[in-house]
Protein backbone atom coordinates (compact mmCIF):
# COMPACT_ATOMS: atom_id res chain seq x y z
CA UNK A 1 0.00 0.00 0.00
CA UNK A 2 2.91 2.32 0.70
CA UNK A 3 4.01 2.10 -2.94
CA UNK A 4 0.49 2.77 -4.21
CA UNK A 5 0.16 5.77 -1.90
CA UNK A 6 3.51 7.09 -3.13
CA UNK A 7 2.53 6.72 -6.80
CA UNK A 8 -0.84 8.45 -6.25
CA UNK A 9 0.77 11.22 -4.18
CA UNK A 10 3.39 11.82 -6.87
CA UNK A 11 0.81 11.99 -9.68
CA UNK A 12 -1.37 14.45 -7.75
CA UNK A 13 1.61 16.60 -6.84
CA UNK A 14 2.90 16.59 -10.41
CA UNK A 15 -0.51 17.58 -11.67
CA UNK A 16 -0.76 20.46 -9.21
CA UNK A 17 2.75 21.62 -10.14
CA UNK A 18 1.95 21.55 -13.84
CA UNK A 19 -0.38 24.55 -13.90
CA UNK A 20 -0.47 24.63 -17.70
CA UNK A 21 -1.76 21.06 -17.75
CA UNK A 22 -4.40 21.92 -15.15
CA UNK A 23 -5.56 24.95 -17.11
CA UNK A 24 -5.53 23.07 -20.44
CA UNK A 25 -7.56 20.27 -18.89
CA UNK A 26 -10.21 22.79 -17.83
CA UNK A 27 -10.15 25.12 -20.82
CA UNK A 28 -11.10 22.36 -23.26
CA UNK A 29 -14.44 21.42 -21.65
CA UNK A 30 -15.17 25.00 -20.68
CA UNK A 31 -14.86 26.11 -24.30
CA UNK A 32 -17.30 23.38 -25.25
CA UNK A 33 -19.65 24.31 -22.46
CA UNK A 34 -19.63 28.08 -22.79
CA UNK A 35 -19.17 28.57 -26.54
CA UNK A 36 -20.19 25.38 -28.30
CA UNK A 37 -23.06 24.81 -25.87
CA UNK A 38 -24.41 28.34 -26.25
CA UNK A 39 -24.12 28.14 -30.04
CA UNK A 40 -25.90 24.81 -30.33
CA UNK A 41 -28.60 25.57 -27.79
CA UNK A 42 -30.82 27.06 -30.47
CA UNK A 43 -30.04 24.45 -33.13
CA UNK A 44 -30.64 21.32 -31.07
CA UNK A 45 -33.97 20.58 -29.47
CA UNK A 46 -33.94 18.13 -26.58
CA UNK A 47 -36.97 16.04 -25.67
CA UNK A 48 -37.63 14.81 -22.15
CA UNK A 49 -35.54 11.67 -21.96
CA UNK A 50 -34.18 9.72 -18.99
CA UNK A 51 -32.63 10.64 -16.64
CA UNK A 52 -34.17 14.09 -17.14
CA UNK A 53 -37.69 14.73 -15.82
CA UNK A 54 -38.16 17.98 -17.66
CA UNK A 55 -36.82 19.98 -20.60
CA UNK A 56 -33.20 20.96 -20.11
CA UNK A 57 -30.82 23.39 -21.77
CA UNK A 58 -28.26 21.97 -24.18
CA UNK A 59 -25.42 23.08 -21.87
CA UNK A 60 -26.96 21.01 -19.11
CA UNK A 61 -27.10 18.01 -21.42
CA UNK A 62 -23.42 18.12 -22.39
CA UNK A 63 -22.00 18.51 -18.86
CA UNK A 64 -21.75 14.71 -18.24
CA UNK A 65 -20.14 14.27 -21.67
CA UNK A 66 -17.62 16.97 -20.84
CA UNK A 67 -16.86 15.22 -17.55
CA UNK A 68 -16.24 12.16 -19.73
CA UNK A 69 -13.92 14.01 -22.11
CA UNK A 70 -11.89 15.29 -19.15
CA UNK A 71 -11.26 11.77 -17.86
CA UNK A 72 -10.74 10.46 -21.40
CA UNK A 73 -8.00 13.03 -22.11
CA UNK A 74 -6.53 12.48 -18.67
CA UNK A 75 -6.43 8.71 -19.13
CA UNK A 76 -4.64 9.06 -22.45
CA UNK A 77 -2.26 11.64 -21.02
CA UNK A 78 -1.34 9.31 -18.18
CA UNK A 79 -0.65 6.56 -20.68
CA UNK A 80 1.49 9.03 -22.62
CA UNK A 81 3.47 9.75 -19.46
CA UNK A 82 4.15 6.02 -19.09
CA UNK A 83 5.46 5.87 -22.66
CA UNK A 84 7.56 8.96 -21.90
CA UNK A 85 8.94 7.46 -18.68
CA UNK A 86 9.77 4.27 -20.55
CA UNK A 87 11.49 6.17 -23.33
CA UNK A 88 13.49 8.40 -20.97
CA UNK A 89 14.46 5.57 -18.64
CA UNK A 90 12.76 6.92 -15.52
CA UNK A 91 10.46 3.87 -15.53
CA UNK A 92 13.46 1.90 -14.26
CA UNK A 93 12.96 3.25 -10.76
CA UNK A 94 9.49 1.70 -10.68
CA UNK A 95 10.78 -1.54 -12.15
CA UNK A 96 13.36 -2.04 -9.39
CA UNK A 97 10.92 -1.19 -6.60
CA UNK A 98 9.94 -4.25 -4.56
CA UNK A 99 6.41 -4.33 -5.96
CA UNK A 100 4.88 -6.50 -8.64
CA UNK A 101 4.25 -5.04 -12.09
CA UNK A 102 0.55 -5.74 -11.65
CA UNK A 103 0.49 -3.67 -8.48
CA UNK A 104 2.53 -0.96 -10.17
CA UNK A 105 0.06 -0.74 -13.07
CA UNK A 106 -2.93 -0.76 -10.73
CA UNK A 107 -1.34 2.02 -8.69
CA UNK A 108 -0.68 4.02 -11.84
CA UNK A 109 -4.28 3.50 -12.93
CA UNK A 110 -5.74 4.63 -9.61
CA UNK A 111 -3.37 7.61 -9.55
CA UNK A 112 -4.48 8.62 -13.03
CA UNK A 113 -8.18 8.26 -12.16
CA UNK A 114 -7.67 10.34 -9.00
CA UNK A 115 -6.16 13.16 -11.05
CA UNK A 116 -9.07 12.88 -13.51
CA UNK A 117 -11.59 13.05 -10.68
CA UNK A 118 -9.89 16.13 -9.30
CA UNK A 119 -10.15 17.85 -12.69
CA UNK A 120 -13.83 16.95 -13.04
CA UNK A 121 -14.63 18.31 -9.58
CA UNK A 122 -13.08 21.65 -10.50
CA UNK A 123 -14.99 21.63 -13.81
CA UNK A 124 -18.29 20.87 -12.05
CA UNK A 125 -17.59 23.67 -9.60
CA UNK A 126 -17.12 26.14 -12.46
CA UNK A 127 -20.22 24.76 -14.18
CA UNK A 128 -22.12 25.31 -10.92
CA UNK A 129 -21.14 28.97 -10.91
CA UNK A 130 -22.26 29.48 -14.51
CA UNK A 131 -25.67 28.12 -13.62
CA UNK A 132 -25.49 24.43 -14.48
CA UNK A 133 -26.38 22.78 -11.22
CA UNK A 134 -27.73 19.49 -9.96
CA UNK A 135 -28.96 18.38 -6.54
CA UNK A 136 -26.21 18.01 -3.90
CA UNK A 137 -26.84 14.26 -3.76
CA UNK A 138 -26.14 14.11 -7.52
CA UNK A 139 -22.61 15.41 -6.99
CA UNK A 140 -22.00 12.81 -4.30
CA UNK A 141 -23.37 9.94 -6.40
CA UNK A 142 -21.54 11.13 -9.51
CA UNK A 143 -18.16 10.85 -7.77
CA UNK A 144 -17.89 7.04 -7.92
CA UNK A 145 -19.37 7.08 -11.44
CA UNK A 146 -16.70 9.55 -12.61
CA UNK A 147 -13.98 7.57 -10.85
CA UNK A 148 -15.12 4.31 -12.40
CA UNK A 149 -15.28 5.87 -15.87
CA UNK A 150 -11.82 7.35 -15.30
CA UNK A 151 -10.52 3.91 -14.32
CA UNK A 152 -11.99 2.34 -17.46
CA UNK A 153 -10.52 4.98 -19.76
CA UNK A 154 -7.20 4.95 -17.91
CA UNK A 155 -7.05 1.17 -18.36
CA UNK A 156 -7.73 1.65 -22.06
CA UNK A 157 -4.82 4.10 -22.18
CA UNK A 158 -2.57 1.62 -20.36
CA UNK A 159 -3.53 -1.13 -22.78
CA UNK A 160 -2.77 1.16 -25.73
CA UNK A 161 0.56 2.17 -24.22
CA UNK A 162 1.73 -1.44 -24.46
CA UNK A 163 1.35 -1.27 -28.22
CA UNK A 164 3.29 1.94 -28.63
CA UNK A 165 7.03 1.70 -29.00
CA UNK A 166 7.81 5.35 -29.67
CA UNK A 167 6.59 8.54 -28.09
CA UNK A 168 5.84 10.21 -31.41
CA UNK A 169 3.43 7.40 -32.36
CA UNK A 170 1.28 8.17 -29.40
CA UNK A 171 -0.21 11.39 -30.78
CA UNK A 172 -1.62 9.50 -33.75
CA UNK A 173 -3.14 6.83 -31.56
CA UNK A 174 -4.68 9.50 -29.37
CA UNK A 175 -6.31 11.13 -32.37
CA UNK A 176 -7.62 7.78 -33.56
CA UNK A 177 -8.99 6.97 -30.11
CA UNK A 178 -10.04 10.20 -28.40
CA UNK A 179 -11.94 11.94 -31.17
CA UNK A 180 -13.85 8.94 -32.55
CA UNK A 181 -14.75 7.88 -29.00
CA UNK A 182 -15.93 11.35 -28.12
CA UNK A 183 -17.89 12.17 -31.27
CA UNK A 184 -19.43 8.71 -31.65
CA UNK A 185 -20.90 8.82 -28.17
CA UNK A 186 -23.81 10.30 -26.28
CA UNK A 187 -21.60 13.08 -24.95
CA UNK A 188 -22.89 15.75 -27.35
CA UNK A 189 -26.22 14.41 -28.61
CA UNK A 190 -28.71 11.96 -27.17
CA UNK A 191 -29.06 8.48 -28.54
CA UNK A 192 -32.70 8.90 -29.60
CA UNK A 193 -31.74 11.74 -31.94
CA UNK A 194 -29.16 9.53 -33.63
CA UNK A 195 -31.58 6.63 -33.87
CA UNK A 196 -33.90 8.92 -35.85
CA UNK A 197 -31.30 10.62 -38.04
CA UNK A 198 -28.37 8.21 -38.38
CA UNK A 199 -29.27 4.68 -37.25
CA UNK A 200 -25.82 3.33 -38.14
CA UNK A 201 -24.19 5.93 -35.90
CA UNK A 202 -26.63 5.05 -33.12
CA UNK A 203 -25.39 1.44 -33.32
CA UNK A 204 -21.77 2.59 -33.06
CA UNK A 205 -22.64 4.82 -30.13
CA UNK A 206 -24.34 1.96 -28.32
CA UNK A 207 -21.21 -0.16 -28.63
CA UNK A 208 -18.89 2.65 -27.57
CA UNK A 209 -17.85 2.12 -23.92
CA UNK A 210 -17.28 5.85 -23.58
CA UNK A 211 -21.02 6.40 -24.15
CA UNK A 212 -21.75 4.14 -21.20
CA UNK A 213 -19.27 5.99 -19.02
CA UNK A 214 -20.98 9.26 -19.92
CA UNK A 215 -24.44 7.80 -19.29
CA UNK A 216 -23.32 6.41 -15.94
CA UNK A 217 -22.17 9.90 -14.93
CA UNK A 218 -25.33 11.50 -16.37
CA UNK A 219 -27.68 9.22 -14.44
CA UNK A 220 -25.63 9.51 -11.23
CA UNK A 221 -25.73 13.32 -11.42
CA UNK A 222 -29.53 13.04 -11.31
CA UNK A 223 -29.42 10.43 -8.52
CA UNK A 224 -30.42 7.62 -10.85
CA UNK A 225 -28.74 4.43 -11.93
CA UNK A 226 -28.30 2.76 -15.30
CA UNK A 227 -27.36 -0.82 -14.62
CA UNK A 228 -26.59 -1.55 -18.26
CA UNK A 229 -23.99 1.22 -18.43
CA UNK A 230 -22.55 0.27 -15.05
CA UNK A 231 -22.14 -3.34 -16.17
CA UNK A 232 -20.51 -2.34 -19.45
CA UNK A 233 -18.13 0.10 -17.77
CA UNK A 234 -17.07 -2.49 -15.18
CA UNK A 235 -16.69 -5.20 -17.85
CA UNK A 236 -14.62 -2.88 -20.07
CA UNK A 237 -12.48 -1.84 -17.11
CA UNK A 238 -11.68 -5.49 -16.37
CA UNK A 239 -11.07 -6.24 -20.04
CA UNK A 240 -8.80 -3.23 -20.69
CA UNK A 241 -6.83 -3.73 -17.49
CA UNK A 242 -6.36 -7.42 -18.24
CA UNK A 243 -5.12 -6.50 -21.71
CA UNK A 244 -2.72 -3.96 -20.17
CA UNK A 245 -1.38 -6.56 -17.72
CA UNK A 246 -0.99 -9.10 -20.47
CA UNK A 247 0.67 -6.52 -22.71
CA UNK A 248 3.20 -5.52 -20.05
CA UNK A 249 3.96 -9.15 -19.22
CA UNK A 250 4.35 -10.28 -22.81
CA UNK A 251 6.30 -7.32 -24.09
CA UNK A 252 9.60 -8.19 -22.52
CA UNK A 253 11.10 -8.03 -25.96
CA UNK A 254 10.10 -4.38 -26.00
CA UNK A 255 11.71 -3.78 -22.61
CA UNK A 256 14.83 -5.39 -23.97
CA UNK A 257 14.95 -2.96 -26.84
CA UNK A 258 14.18 -0.04 -24.57
CA UNK A 259 16.72 -0.72 -21.86
CA UNK A 260 19.62 -1.86 -23.92
Amino acid at each position, binding site marked *: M*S*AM*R*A*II*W*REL*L*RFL*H*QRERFIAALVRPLVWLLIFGAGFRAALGLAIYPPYDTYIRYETYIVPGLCGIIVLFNGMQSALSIVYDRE*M*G*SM*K*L*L*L*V*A*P*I*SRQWMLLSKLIASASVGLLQVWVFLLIAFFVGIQVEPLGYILATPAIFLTALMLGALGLALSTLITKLQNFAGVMNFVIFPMFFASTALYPLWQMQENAPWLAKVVEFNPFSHGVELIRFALYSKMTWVSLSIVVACLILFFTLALWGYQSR*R*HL*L*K*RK*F*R
Partner: protein
Amino acid sequence: MTDIVLENVNFSYGKKTVLENFSLSIKGEGFTALLGANGAGKSTIFNLIAGILVSDQGKIMIGDVNAHDRLQRHTANMGFVFQENTLDPELSVQQNIRYFAGLFGLKNYQPRVEVLLKEFGLWQQRSEKAASLNGGHRRRLEIVRALLPNPEILILDEPTSGLDPTIRQEISNQVHALAKQGVNVVWITHLLDEIEEHDQVILLEKGRIKEQGTFAELGGAQGIKSKFVAKEALLQL
Protein backbone atom coordinates in the same frame (compact mmCIF):
# COMPACT_ATOMS: atom_id res chain seq x y z
CA MET B 1 27.95 -9.79 3.01
CA THR B 2 25.98 -10.44 -0.15
CA ASP B 3 27.69 -11.87 -3.22
CA ILE B 4 26.43 -11.37 -6.77
CA VAL B 5 26.74 -14.46 -8.96
CA LEU B 6 25.76 -14.89 -12.60
CA GLU B 7 25.97 -18.46 -13.88
CA ASN B 8 25.84 -19.42 -17.56
CA VAL B 9 23.62 -16.51 -18.44
CA ASN B 10 22.38 -16.08 -21.98
CA PHE B 11 20.75 -12.87 -23.09
CA SER B 12 19.90 -11.44 -26.46
CA TYR B 13 18.09 -8.43 -27.87
CA GLY B 14 16.09 -10.06 -30.62
CA LYS B 15 18.62 -11.78 -32.84
CA LYS B 16 21.59 -9.96 -31.36
CA THR B 17 23.25 -12.02 -28.66
CA VAL B 18 24.79 -9.86 -25.94
CA LEU B 19 25.71 -12.46 -23.32
CA GLU B 20 26.36 -16.10 -24.07
CA ASN B 21 27.14 -18.58 -21.33
CA PHE B 22 28.27 -15.65 -19.23
CA SER B 23 29.40 -16.22 -15.66
CA LEU B 24 30.49 -13.64 -13.13
CA SER B 25 31.09 -13.55 -9.41
CA ILE B 26 31.35 -10.37 -7.36
CA LYS B 27 32.33 -10.77 -3.72
CA GLY B 28 30.13 -9.01 -1.23
CA GLU B 29 32.59 -6.35 -0.14
CA GLY B 30 34.68 -3.50 -1.44
CA PHE B 31 34.61 -1.68 -4.74
CA THR B 32 34.27 -3.62 -8.00
CA ALA B 33 34.50 -1.87 -11.35
CA LEU B 34 32.85 -3.44 -14.38
CA LEU B 35 34.90 -1.87 -17.10
CA GLY B 36 34.31 -2.04 -20.80
CA ALA B 37 33.71 -0.07 -23.96
CA ASN B 38 30.25 0.63 -25.35
CA GLY B 39 28.54 -2.57 -26.40
CA ALA B 40 30.53 -4.75 -23.97
CA GLY B 41 27.32 -5.71 -22.17
CA LYS B 42 27.78 -3.59 -19.01
CA SER B 43 24.31 -2.06 -18.91
CA THR B 44 22.70 -5.37 -19.80
CA ILE B 45 24.42 -6.91 -16.77
CA PHE B 46 23.19 -4.00 -14.64
CA ASN B 47 19.61 -4.46 -15.86
CA LEU B 48 19.77 -8.22 -15.30
CA ILE B 49 21.05 -7.81 -11.73
CA ALA B 50 18.43 -5.12 -11.10
CA GLY B 51 15.71 -7.45 -12.36
CA ILE B 52 14.66 -4.98 -15.07
CA LEU B 53 15.57 -7.57 -17.67
CA VAL B 54 15.14 -11.32 -17.37
CA SER B 55 17.82 -13.62 -18.74
CA ASP B 56 16.94 -16.05 -21.53
CA GLN B 57 18.84 -18.76 -19.69
CA GLY B 58 21.08 -19.16 -16.64
CA LYS B 59 20.93 -18.17 -13.02
CA ILE B 60 21.45 -14.82 -11.31
CA MET B 61 21.87 -15.01 -7.55
CA ILE B 62 22.04 -12.07 -5.15
CA GLY B 63 23.20 -13.72 -1.93
CA ASP B 64 21.00 -16.77 -1.70
CA VAL B 65 18.08 -15.22 -3.57
CA ASN B 66 17.35 -15.76 -7.24
CA ALA B 67 17.15 -12.44 -9.08
CA HIS B 68 13.96 -13.53 -10.79
CA ASP B 69 12.29 -13.74 -7.40
CA ARG B 70 13.79 -10.46 -6.36
CA LEU B 71 12.09 -8.85 -9.31
CA GLN B 72 8.91 -8.94 -7.30
CA ARG B 73 9.99 -8.68 -3.71
CA HIS B 74 13.56 -8.32 -2.58
CA THR B 75 15.22 -5.31 -4.17
CA ALA B 76 14.89 -3.47 -0.88
CA ASN B 77 18.45 -4.16 0.27
CA MET B 78 20.01 -2.97 -2.99
CA GLY B 79 20.63 0.58 -4.10
CA PHE B 80 20.58 1.48 -7.79
CA VAL B 81 21.96 4.51 -9.58
CA PHE B 82 20.89 4.47 -13.19
CA GLN B 83 22.67 5.84 -16.22
CA GLU B 84 19.57 7.88 -17.04
CA ASN B 85 18.17 10.59 -14.82
CA THR B 86 15.31 8.96 -12.92
CA LEU B 87 14.50 11.91 -10.70
CA ASP B 88 11.15 13.61 -11.13
CA PRO B 89 12.10 17.11 -12.27
CA GLU B 90 8.79 18.54 -11.01
CA LEU B 91 9.41 17.42 -7.44
CA SER B 92 11.81 18.92 -4.93
CA VAL B 93 14.81 17.06 -3.52
CA GLN B 94 12.85 16.04 -0.41
CA GLN B 95 9.76 15.11 -2.42
CA ASN B 96 11.83 12.89 -4.70
CA ILE B 97 13.18 11.15 -1.60
CA ARG B 98 9.70 10.82 -0.10
CA TYR B 99 8.42 9.27 -3.33
CA PHE B 100 11.29 6.78 -3.36
CA ALA B 101 10.78 5.94 0.33
CA GLY B 102 7.12 5.24 -0.36
CA LEU B 103 7.92 3.03 -3.36
CA PHE B 104 10.38 1.00 -1.30
CA GLY B 105 8.16 0.96 1.79
CA LEU B 106 10.75 2.68 4.00
CA LYS B 107 9.77 3.85 7.47
CA ASN B 108 11.46 6.31 9.84
CA TYR B 109 13.86 7.36 7.13
CA GLN B 110 13.91 11.10 7.86
CA PRO B 111 16.91 11.15 10.23
CA ARG B 112 18.94 9.25 7.63
CA VAL B 113 17.84 11.67 4.90
CA GLU B 114 19.29 14.58 6.84
CA VAL B 115 22.58 12.76 7.44
CA LEU B 116 22.92 11.72 3.78
CA LEU B 117 21.90 15.09 2.33
CA LYS B 118 24.50 16.79 4.53
CA GLU B 119 27.14 14.18 3.69
CA PHE B 120 26.58 14.66 -0.04
CA GLY B 121 26.31 18.45 0.13
CA LEU B 122 22.62 18.68 -0.74
CA TRP B 123 21.15 19.97 2.51
CA GLN B 124 20.96 23.56 1.25
CA GLN B 125 19.14 22.41 -1.88
CA ARG B 126 16.61 20.19 -0.10
CA SER B 127 13.62 22.33 -1.06
CA GLU B 128 14.69 22.99 -4.65
CA LYS B 129 13.08 21.23 -7.56
CA ALA B 130 15.21 18.50 -9.11
CA ALA B 131 14.95 20.34 -12.45
CA SER B 132 16.88 23.27 -11.02
CA LEU B 133 19.81 21.18 -9.72
CA ASN B 134 23.05 20.99 -11.65
CA GLY B 135 24.26 17.68 -13.08
CA GLY B 136 26.55 16.91 -10.15
CA HIS B 137 23.84 17.56 -7.56
CA ARG B 138 21.37 15.41 -9.47
CA ARG B 139 23.78 12.51 -9.51
CA ARG B 140 24.46 12.96 -5.80
CA LEU B 141 20.74 13.00 -5.12
CA GLU B 142 20.36 9.73 -7.02
CA ILE B 143 23.14 8.25 -4.86
CA VAL B 144 21.53 9.57 -1.66
CA ARG B 145 18.25 8.05 -2.75
CA ALA B 146 19.90 4.72 -3.49
CA LEU B 147 21.56 4.73 -0.05
CA LEU B 148 18.35 5.48 1.81
CA PRO B 149 17.38 1.84 2.48
CA ASN B 150 20.88 1.29 3.89
CA PRO B 151 21.61 -1.24 1.13
CA GLU B 152 24.19 -3.98 1.32
CA ILE B 153 24.85 -3.57 -2.39
CA LEU B 154 25.12 -0.30 -4.29
CA ILE B 155 25.23 -0.71 -8.05
CA LEU B 156 25.84 2.28 -10.30
CA ASP B 157 25.59 2.34 -14.09
CA GLU B 158 27.94 4.97 -15.53
CA PRO B 159 26.98 7.34 -12.72
CA THR B 160 29.30 10.15 -13.77
CA SER B 161 28.53 10.29 -17.47
CA GLY B 162 28.19 13.84 -18.71
CA LEU B 163 29.82 15.41 -15.65
CA ASP B 164 32.98 17.47 -15.61
CA PRO B 165 36.20 15.80 -14.35
CA THR B 166 36.29 17.54 -10.96
CA ILE B 167 32.75 16.50 -10.07
CA ARG B 168 33.35 13.02 -11.43
CA GLN B 169 36.36 12.67 -9.15
CA GLU B 170 34.42 13.97 -6.13
CA ILE B 171 31.58 11.52 -6.69
CA SER B 172 34.01 8.68 -7.29
CA ASN B 173 35.78 9.53 -4.00
CA GLN B 174 32.49 9.62 -2.11
CA VAL B 175 31.46 6.22 -3.45
CA HIS B 176 34.88 4.76 -2.70
CA ALA B 177 34.44 6.00 0.87
CA LEU B 178 31.13 4.10 1.04
CA ALA B 179 32.89 0.92 -0.08
CA LYS B 180 35.39 1.38 2.76
CA GLN B 181 32.46 1.67 5.17
CA GLY B 182 31.31 -1.81 4.14
CA VAL B 183 28.90 -1.24 1.23
CA ASN B 184 29.41 -3.67 -1.65
CA VAL B 185 29.85 -1.22 -4.55
CA VAL B 186 29.56 -2.29 -8.19
CA TRP B 187 30.58 0.61 -10.41
CA ILE B 188 29.94 0.24 -14.13
CA THR B 189 32.07 2.49 -16.24
CA HIS B 190 34.23 2.97 -19.31
CA LEU B 191 36.36 5.60 -17.57
CA LEU B 192 39.67 4.41 -16.18
CA ASP B 193 40.31 7.45 -14.01
CA GLU B 194 37.45 6.48 -11.70
CA ILE B 195 39.21 3.33 -10.54
CA GLU B 196 41.65 3.16 -7.64
CA GLU B 197 44.62 0.88 -7.18
CA HIS B 198 43.00 -1.66 -4.83
CA ASP B 199 39.64 -1.83 -6.60
CA GLN B 200 38.61 -5.12 -8.14
CA VAL B 201 38.31 -4.70 -11.90
CA ILE B 202 36.39 -6.93 -14.29
CA LEU B 203 37.28 -6.19 -17.89
CA LEU B 204 34.44 -6.84 -20.29
CA GLU B 205 34.70 -7.08 -24.03
CA LYS B 206 31.90 -8.13 -26.38
CA GLY B 207 29.92 -9.87 -23.66
CA ARG B 208 32.85 -11.80 -22.22
CA ILE B 209 35.17 -11.31 -19.26
CA LYS B 210 38.55 -10.57 -20.73
CA GLU B 211 40.43 -10.38 -17.48
CA GLN B 212 39.93 -9.61 -13.82
CA GLY B 213 41.99 -8.63 -10.80
CA THR B 214 42.83 -5.52 -8.86
CA PHE B 215 43.55 -2.36 -10.82
CA ALA B 216 47.20 -2.66 -9.80
CA GLU B 217 47.40 -6.34 -10.78
CA LEU B 218 46.10 -5.51 -14.24
CA GLY B 219 48.85 -2.98 -14.70
CA GLY B 220 46.89 0.19 -13.99
CA ALA B 221 45.49 2.37 -16.73
CA GLN B 222 48.22 1.58 -19.25
CA GLY B 223 48.09 -2.15 -18.61
CA ILE B 224 44.32 -2.25 -19.01
CA LYS B 225 44.38 -0.17 -22.17
CA SER B 226 46.88 -2.50 -23.76
CA LYS B 227 44.53 -5.46 -23.21
CA PHE B 228 41.74 -3.97 -25.26
CA VAL B 229 41.28 -4.12 -28.99
CA ALA B 230 39.15 -0.98 -28.96
CA LYS B 231 41.55 1.06 -26.85
CA GLU B 232 40.13 4.37 -27.95
CA ALA B 233 36.83 3.48 -26.30
CA LEU B 234 38.41 3.66 -22.86
CA LEU B 235 39.24 7.10 -21.68
CA GLN B 236 42.46 7.59 -19.80
CA LEU B 237 43.31 9.68 -16.83
